[in-house]
C-alpha cells in the first residue's frame, strides 16, 4: 500500500524539476496543464487517490494536497508573469540572424601590397609612374648597359615577340619587358635631374611555373638622381622602406652584388621571420638567417650616358624588388601560383 504523504512530497519534487527545465511561455503552459488540469491533472489525481486512505487521515492529507496545489499555482503564476515580462516588444527582430552584407569585392593581395609600397615611397617624395609592358631591345637592355651578347642578359631570360607590336609608348616593341627599368630610361630621356621615382608594373621572364616562379610577375623599381646622391643614401632609403614594410624588429643587411646597370651593386637582406634570424633548422631562409628582398646599386655611368645625363655631375641610385616575393615573405604564402589562380578561398583571406 502506498503512503499518500510520501506521494505528495514526490510530486512536489517532480514539479520542481520539471519547472526548472521549462523555459518560455508555451513550456510553462504545458507544465500548468500537466499538474493543475481539472481532468487528468496530476494534483487532481492525487486528491482522488486519497479515497483509499483511512478516513481519519483524509482531512489532514486533503489539506496537504491543497497546500501543494496552492504552492504550484503561485509558483507558476510568478514564472508566467516573469516570462511575459521578458517577451520582445511587438515588431522586434531576431538580432542573431545573419545580416545582408553589401556584396563588396576584394582587391588582389598584390594590389594591397603594391599600393602600400607606393604609399611608403610617395611619403618619401617619390613620383609613381607607369609605362609600356612591351619594350624594344634598346630600352630594356642596351640603354641599361647590356649590349647584345652581354652575359648578364642570361640573368633575365626574355620572351620575344614573333613580329614587332606598337607599344603603349608608341615604339615598335620586340619583347615583353623583363623589368620596369625601361620606364626609367624613358623618364630620364624626357626629364632633366633631379629624379626621384618608383616604377611599378608587370614584368615577364621565360620561367616555368613552380612554387617560386611565374612567367609574369610584378616589380617595383626605383630611381633617384641628383647632384649629391650616394650609396649611403641608398642604404638609408631602403632600410627605412624595409623596416616600415616588415616591422622595426627586423634586421636589415646590405651586401655587394652585381647588376649590369648599377655600380657598385648591392643586395638587401632582411632577417628571416620564420626563425627570427637564427637560421636554426629553417627551410625558409635555407639556414642562413637572412632573406634576400631587394637588388640595388648606384646607377652605372653608362646608363647616364645613354640618356644624356652628365655622369661626372650626377650620381644616382636604383633598386628593384618583386612584389610576389615580398608577399611570400610577408604573408607566408607558400606557392606563388596562388596569386594568379584567383581562387576566392585565397583572395578572401586578405582584407577588403
Amino acid at each position: 500500500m502506498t503512503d499518500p504523504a510520501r506521494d505528495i512530497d514526490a510530486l512536489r519534487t517532480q514539479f520542481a524539476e520539471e519547472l526548472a527545465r521549462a523555459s518560455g511561455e508555451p513550456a510553462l503552459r504545458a507544465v500548468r496543464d500537466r499538474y493543475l488540469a481539472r481532468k487528468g491533472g496530476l494534483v487532481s489525481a492525487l486528491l482522488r487517490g486519497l479515497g483509499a486512505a483511512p478516513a481519519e487521515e483524509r482531512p489532514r492529507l486533503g489539506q496537504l494536497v491543497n497546500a501543494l496545489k496552492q504552492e504550484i499555482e503561485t509558483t507558476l503564476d510568478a514564472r508566467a508573469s516573469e516570462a511575459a515580462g521578458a517577451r520582445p516588444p511587438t515588431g522586434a527582430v531576431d538580432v542573431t540572424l545573419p545580416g545582408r552584407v553589401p556584396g563588396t569585392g576584394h582587391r588582389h593581395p598584390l594590389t594591397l601590397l603594391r599600393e602600400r609600397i607606393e604609399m611608403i615611397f610617395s611619403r618619401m617624395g617619390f613620383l609613381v609612374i607607369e609605362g609600356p609592358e612591351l619594350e624594344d631591345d634598346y630600352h630594356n637592355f642596351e640603354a641599361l648597359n647590356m649590349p647584345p651578347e652581354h652575359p648578364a642578359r642570361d640573368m633575365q631570360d626574355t620572351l620575344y615577340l614573333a613580329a614587332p607590336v606598337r607599344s603603349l609608348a608608341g615604339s615598335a616593341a620586340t619583347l615583353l619587358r623583363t623589368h620596369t627599368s625601361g620606364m626609367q630610361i624613358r623618364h630620364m630621356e624626357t626629364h632633366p635631374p633631379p629624379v626621384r621615382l618608383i616604377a611599378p608594373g608587370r614584368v615577364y621572364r621565360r620561367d616555368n611555373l613552380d612554387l617560386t616562379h611565374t612567367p609574369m610577375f610584378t616589380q617595383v623599381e626605383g630611381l633617384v638622381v641628383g647632384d649629391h646622391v650616394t650609396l649611403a643614401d641608398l642604404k638609408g632609403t631602403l632600410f627605412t622602406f624595409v623596416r616600415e614594410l616588415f616591422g622595426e624588429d627586423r634586421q636589415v643587411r646590405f651586401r655587394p652584388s652585381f647588376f649590369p646597370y648599377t655600380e657598385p651593386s648591392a643586395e638587401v637582406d632582411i632577417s628571416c621571420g620564420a626563425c627570427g634570424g637564427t637560421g636554426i633548422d629553417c627551410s625558409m631562409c635555407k639556414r642562413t638567417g637572412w632573406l634576400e628582398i631587394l637588388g640595388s646599386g648606384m646607377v652605372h655611368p653608362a646608363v647616364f650616358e645613354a640618356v644624356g645625363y652628365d655622369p661626372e655631375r650626377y650620381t644616382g641610385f636604383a633598386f628593384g624588388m618583386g612584389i610576389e616575393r615580398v608577399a611570400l615573405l610577408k604573408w607566408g604564402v607558400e606557392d606563388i601560383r596562388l596569386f594568379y589562380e584567383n581562387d576566392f578561398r585565397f583572395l578572401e583571406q586578405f582584407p577588403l
Partner: protein
Amino acid sequence: MKLVYPWLRDFVRVTEDVETVARELGLRGFEVASVEQGAHPVIDFEITANRPDCLSHLGLAREAAAIWGLPLQMPGMAMPAPGPAEDLDVEIADTDLCPRYCVQVFEVKNGPSPAFIRERLEAAGIRAISAVVDVTNYVMLELGQPMHAFDLDRIEGRRLVIRRAVPGEPLRTLDGLERALEADMLVIADASRALAVGGVMGGKDSETGPATTRIALESAYFQPASIRRTSKGLGLKTEASSRFERGTDVNAPPAGIARAAALLERIGAGRPLGSLIDRYPSPTRPLQIRLRAARIARVLGQEVPPADVPRILAPLGFLVAEGRDADEPGWLITVPTFRVDVLREVDLVEEVARHFGFDRLPSTFPVLSAPQAPLDPRILRDRLLRQLLTTAGFSESMTFAFIEREAAMPFTEPGGQPPAIANPLSEKFAVLRPSLLPGLIDSCAHNRRRGRKDVQLFETGSRYTSAGEGRAAAFCWLGSAVPPHWSGSGRLVDFFDMKGALELVCAGFGVHDPHFAAVDRAYLAPGRAAEVFAGDVRLGVLGQLAPVLAEARGLPAGEEIYVAELDTELLGRAAAGDTLRAESLPRFPAIVRDVSVLVDEALPAAAVRGTIRAAAPSTLASVVEFDRYQGKGIPDGRISLSLRLTFRSAERTMTDDEAQDAMDRIVAALAREHAAEQR
C-alpha cells in the same frame, strides 16, 4: 663554383674556419649557396656574371688575401725551356674570334691520376678520368684557364688551324653527338677536318685515351661573345664555355701550360717536348684608370682613408701608383687583364667599397631639392577603377598576359591574329591576349570547379589588339545577382545588373550620360550585347557570354554569364576631370507626372526618352522608366512602358496647367513618332 677549402689554403694560409671564410666572402659579393663540411670542406659560391676570374681558386684566393691581409702564394710552375718547338704548324685564321692560342706538345703516360688530384676534382664536382684530362681540369679550377688536350697522333698533317667552320661542317663532339656546325662557329681543325669546337668542346676523333703517348695541349683565349653564340647555338654549356663566354685572362694561357707541365711532371705523367708555341698577334695593353679620392667619397657618401686604397687594391692584383695631380688627390691604377669587369673609375670605387665594407657605410637620406610631381594619372585611374568595381561587388583577379591561341581567337578582330610570342613557354602561353576576358573567364571556371556558385571578378591590365598595346578593365559575373540571404528572394544575374555596374563605373569617372547601342559580337550572345559610348567615343562592350564559348571554357552552357570590358585609356580621357562646379539647390518645387504608353516591343526605350525630351519644354528636369510590362491585357507585339517625368522651373513655381500642357504635347509626339497609345 665549388671552392675546396684546403685547395684555397695552397694560395693563402687563412686560419679562419670554413664558415667564417664563407660568410666573409659572402659579404664581399660572393653569394654562398651551401657549405659542406667533411674531409674536403667545400663552399659552393654563386659567382656573378661579372667575375669570371673567381671561377677559380686563385681568384677567390685574391679576395681572401685582401680580406685578411695575407700574402698570395702562386703554385708551382714549370715553363718549358725556350728553344725550337716540336714540329707542329699552328695558324690562327680568325684572330677576331681567337686573339691568342698557345699549344705545347707533351710526351705522356696517360694512366689514372693520383689521389690528391682525384679527390680535389671530385670535391669540386668534376669526375676524374685520366691523368691528362684531370690535369687540364685541375688547372682550370685552379687558375680559371680552361685547357684541352688533343691526341697528337690523331692530328693530320701536323697542323692546327683556328678558323670559322664551313657551314654544315660535321664534327662528333666528346659527348658522342654528331653535330653540323654553322659558319660563325670557331673550330680547331687539322689539315683536313674540324677537331674541336673552340672553347666549347673537343672532338671524339682526337680525344686522348689510355693509349695516348703524345698530346698537343691547348691553352687559349677566345672571344667571349663568339663562345656565347656557339654554346647557345649548339645547346652545349661546358665548364670551359661558361668561363670563356664571360671572359678569361688573355695573359693566362702560358701560365696554364706552365702549371700543367709542373703537375704532369710531379705526378710522373708527362714531360714537355720542345718549347711553347704562342700565337698572340696583337697583345692587349693593360688598362690604366685614374681613381680620385673625392670620387670615392662622392659615390659612397663616406670618406675612405687614403691608406685603405692600396691596402685593398694591391692584393686583388691591381698596380697602385700615387697620382701626380696635386689638385686632385688620387691614384693611377693598372688593371690586371683577369679583371675583365673593371673598365672605368666607378668599377674601382666598387672594389674599394666591397672591401671597405658596406656595413660600415652610414644610412642617410637623399636631399629633396624640388617638390614632387603628382602621381601618374593612370595610377590614379586604376585605383579609382578598383574602388568602383570592388564597390560593385567584383573581386580583383590577375591573369597572365599570354594565353593559348584558341582562347584568344574569339576575342580577336575579324580577320586579325593576336600578336604571337616567338619563344613561348608552351602552347598555353602562345599569344598576347587581345582582351582580358579569356583569362577572367578561365578564373571564373576555376572557381566554379571548386564549388563556388557566385563569382564576380575583374581585372585591370594590358591587352593587345591590331592597334598595339592598350589598357583595359574587364569584369565578369555569374551566379546570384545579390548575395544569398535567409530572407530569400534570390535572383540570378541579368543584363541590367551588369549594365548597372558599368554605369556605376562611368559615373565614378564623371561620365554622366553614357549611351548604349545594341551590337553583334562573336563572343556575346545575339541580342544580349551592347556597346557603351561617351559622346562619340566607344568605351567598351558588355553582354552575355556566348553559351558555346562558356561551355568551351568549362562553364555551364545553360547559365547566363555576363561580361564587360572597357578601354581604360579612353575612359580616363573621357573622364570629367577637375572641372566640377557646384550648382545651387532648386528654389522652387517640382511637379511630377507619370505616363504609360503602349509601344512596339522592339522600340528602344532610348527612342521614347528622346522623343519626350525633344517635345518637352526646358522645364523637364528628368525622365526615367519605372515599369515595363508585357502580357495579359497588352496586345501581342506591344509593351506598356511607364515613365516618370519631373518638371521644374528655375524662376518660379510651375502651375498644374503648365505641366498638363507639356504632358499633352509629349503624348501627342509619342503618338506621332511611335504610334504610341496612352493607357
